[in-house]
Structures are given as structure tokens and as C-alpha cells.
């Protein structure tokens, strides 16, 4: 059963169509990867789904409810949270305070709050760094913190925008293990990623975008070998741009 449905989503910036009549759906507990070259509209889709941008047309349906016109904070309260390509952490707040801020949205009871924060800090692998100011953390820990903050909202769907970008191999492995754990626990994830090695490990299904158009969709191995996908990444006369 699809818990998130995107129907005919379209977004124009002046004369440029960033997303063109895009439709897809995600089932509960599944991981969907979104790939495409730079400027293909991946982050714009996340901004449209999470309410940071208004779609010109089309619908975003979450658990059967139309959330297209809702504001970002309202969408989070419906159970869908996101991370950003460039981490948007509260830099001068501690790890503990960063998680607490997100946890406050759902739970204000002190005891439950404290327990929940402690569990989340351990889950994302930041135990012992609770009082560290976020500004002092390495980028790998910042990515972990941002995922922890999204989990603190009690979201059941995560939109992760390039969680592996700018990380060392060691850090990538750590984040991948964290995500595998979450997926095993039934979390639904939509993942925008360029690191195909990790995407292959995590996502069963992927969609490929080029200039805001969905050019391929299906199982990872089937899609990634399609000629149209190779041309979108490497260039060629039959890419979406020329059609």
C-alpha cells in the first residue's frame, strides 16, 4: 500500500521547468532512490514534497491526505521529515539541544523527553557528545545529528538529501549502517544520492530524473543499465534534453 503518492507534480522557475509532471509512489517500509545529474530537479522535488516550495500543479498525498498546500512544519507533524544536502543544523546549540528542539514538537513531558533524547543520541552514534556544540562536530557527525533530529520528530517517512556527500569512506559506512538499521525497523525512506554504491545497498527501486523529467523507473540493476540513463549522466543525442 502506497503511503506517499506524487501525482503530476510540476514546478516552474520563470521560464525554466524544474519538475515536469512527475508521478511516483512509495510503499510502507520501502526505500526509493532518486538519482539524476546535477540540476535534474532532485532537491526541488524534496522541497515540493516537504512544503518548502509550492507546486504549480499536481498533488502530494500522504497517508491518503492531500498535503500539497501544507507548510513545512505542518507536514512534519503529519509524520514526514527531511534532511538537507548542506546540513541545516543549529550550529551553536549542543547535540542534546538540537535533538530536544525537534522532540519538543511532539512531546513536552520532561521524563519521556529526556529518555527519548538519550535513546536517539545513542541510536545515531553520538553518545558521549551530547554537550558538544554542533559547530565543533565533523561533517559525518553533523549528518548523523541531522538524521537524529529528523527521527526525533517521530517521522515515519524520511526524505534524505545526499546523506553521503562530502563524507570519507569510513563515515559513509557508518551512516549506511545507521540507515540499514532504520530500514530494518520499518522506516520508509526516499533517498536522493549520487553515491551509487551505497544507493545499490539501500534502495530496491529507483527513479532517474533528467531536466525535471522522469526518464526511467524500476529495480536498481534494470534501470542503471538503461541506455537513456547512461546518456543522461554521460551525455548523448538521445537524452531527455534533446527530446
Amino acid at each position, binding site marked *: 500500500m502506497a503511503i506517499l503518492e506524487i501525482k503530476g507534480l510540476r514546478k516552474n522557475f520563470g521560464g525554466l521547468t524544474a519538475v515536469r509532471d512527475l508521478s511516483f509512489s512509495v510503499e510502507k517500509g520501502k526505500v526509493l532512490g532518486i538519482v539524476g545529474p546535477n540540476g535534474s530537479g532532485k532537491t526541488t522535488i524534496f522541497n515540493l514534497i*516537504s512544503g*518548502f516550495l509550492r507546486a504549480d500543479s499536481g498533488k502530494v498525498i500522504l497517508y491518503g491526505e492531500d498535503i500539497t498546500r501544507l*507548510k*513545512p*512544519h505542518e507536514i*512534519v*507533524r503529519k509524520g514526514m*521529515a*527531511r*534532511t*538537507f544536502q548542506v546540513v*541545516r*543544523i*543549529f*550550529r*551553536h*546549540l549542543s547535540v542534546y*539541544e538540537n535533538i*530536544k*528542539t*525537534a522532540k*519538543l*514538537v*511532539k512531546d*513536552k513531558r520532561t521524563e519521556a523527553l529526556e529518555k527519548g533524547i538519550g535513546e536517539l543520541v545513542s541510536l545515531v552514534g553520538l553518545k558521549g557528545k551530547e554537550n558538544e556544540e554542533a559547530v565543533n562536530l565533523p561533517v559525518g557527525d553533523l549528518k548523523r545529528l541531522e538524521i537524529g*533530529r*529528523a527521527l*526525533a*520528530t517521530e517521522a515515519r517517512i524520511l526524505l534524505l538529501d545526499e546523506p553521503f556527500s562530502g563524507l570519507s569512506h569510513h563515515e559513509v559506512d557508518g551512516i549506511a549502517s545507521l540507515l540499514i538499521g532504520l530500514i530494518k525497523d520499518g522506516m520508509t525512506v526516499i533517498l536522493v544520492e549520487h553515491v551509487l554504491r551505497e544507493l545499490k545497498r539501500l534502495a530496491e527501486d529507483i527513479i532517474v530524473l533528467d531536466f525535471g523529467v522522469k526518464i526511467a523507473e524500476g529495480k536498481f540493476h534494470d534501470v542503471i543499465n538503461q541506455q537513456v540513463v547512461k546518456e543522461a549522466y554521460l551525455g548523448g543525442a538521445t537524452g531527455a534534453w534533446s527530446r
Partner: protein
Amino acid sequence: MEKRTMYWAVFSGFILELFLPLIIANYWTLRIFMFANIFVIFAISSDILLGYAGLLSFGQALFFGGAGYVGALLNLHFGLPLILCIAIGCGVALILGLFIGYICLRLKGPYLGVVTLIFPVLFITILHLSPAYLGGDNGIAGFAQIAGGSMHAQFYIVLVVTLASLLITIKIALGNMGLILKAIREDEMGAEAVGINATKYKVFAFAYSAVFGGLAGTLYSLVMGSVAPTTLSPHYSIYPIIMIYLGGASSIIGATIGAYVITYLDLYLLAFPFMRIIIYAGIIIVVLRCFPDGLMGIFKNIGGYQKWLSLKSKV
């Protein structure tokens, strides 16, 4: 600073000031302390807006002077009791704060500062254009003063109101509300992404600073026994900003210290009106360049240095 330390500092200051009229016989020195306390209310409420929510407003004089005028006019023309004048003055400031907060929602940084600067200037023009009712350039006088003008009674009333304002503001600043405001200051988009309604909290910050700015303004005019258009001048918008940055932004005790220092300095510099603005500008430049966390940051560094020294001595 921890909550317990903060309350300890506030209550110590309060106890100390309780005995001040017994120690200080000089009328003017006591009066300076009283005005410093009024500016503490003004500075700490503005700290919620600037230090915690990160919203730079050059329009705080509107709440201070506007509420001062409302309180004075209500007593002068309608003979309302002073407590009611103060309450209505704060209510008017609240409405103005909600209005400005709402229309400036999309603005940030210097853009917000410039737009908010317009409002008190607009009200000064209105005052100049309607001299008969509002007193024109000379302002208004002749309304009742708090405690009939008794210095000691006024001092204690202002002291108690300041203590109450400090306790309420600390409660907000160190509670969940303060944390959410700081999150919005750090990254508004990030705050929205974790389910925070940034609009609601930004309007709250404006409203809070307006109500307590209005409280400070009505106390000021009702203690002075007169109110003039100068209370709406940009000086009164810049005062709380200097106080906050001097003491240390997002530190209620810092803003309190800043308010005391600037109130004293201001009175000593009364004889040199042109030097005042140069000295204040110099303070802001030096503080922001060398001590971005203000006096509270210096105190913290001294603490860190002492800790380092003790570690060295153990080695």
C-alpha cells in the same frame, strides 16, 4: 549560565538593592539605580527578540515611548488610575508588537532593522503634527506620578516590577521557548524542518519585547511625571541593542549588566551630547570586534583561564 546561578545572581542583586536606600543618602544616585532598573526591563525583553530569536529591530522606541504616551494621556485626560494606565499602555504596545511582527515576518537582518526603524519615526511625526492634544515638541506633563512622586516608594515599586520581569524572562529564556527561539535564530529553514512554526514564535518574540518594552516605557513616564517625543527617537531603539551587545546577547544577566553600565554612562555623558553617540559607536565596534560575547563572554573566559591555571598548577 545555569538556571540556578542565574536566579542566585538575580536574588542577590535584589537583596542588595533592597538595602540601597538605607546606604545611599544621595537622591540622584538612588534615582539613577531606579532608571537603570527600568532599562533592565527594556533590555531583557529586547534580548528575547534580538539575542534569542535573532531579530534585529530598530523600532523598540515605539513600544517604549508609545506606551509611555498612552499611560500619560489616559491619566491626564481621563483620570484613570495608574495601574490601569500601565496595563492599557502595555496592551497598546502588544497590539503594535503583533502588528509589526506580522508585517515584518519575511524580513531578516538589516532589512528588518530598516523597516522597523520607520515606525517610531512615523509616530514622532504624528506627535509633531498634533500639538494641542499630544503636547507637540514639548511633550506632556502634569499627570500623576507613581507613589505621588515619593522617591523611596517609587524605587521599591520599580525594583519589584524589575524582579518580576527578570524572573518571567529567565523562565522563558531558559525554558523550551528560549530553545526554540534560538533554533529559529540559528537556522529558520532547519527549524521549520523539525516541525517548528517559525512564524508563530517570531511574532511571539515581537509581542513579548513590545509588552515589556511598553511596561518600561510607562514606568519611565509615570516616574518622570512628563513624557516627550524624544522617548520615540532612534536613541531609545539603539539603547537596548547597545546594552544587549555590551553585556552579551542571549544572556539575560548580560543584558541586565549592560543596562546598568549604559544608564550610568549615559548620565555622565549628558554634558557631552555629541560625544555620546561617538562613544556608543566605539563601544559597539570594540565589543563586536574583540568580545563578541560581551561582558558575559569575558567573565566566562576568565573562568576558563582560571581552570587552565589550576590544571597547570596540578601538572
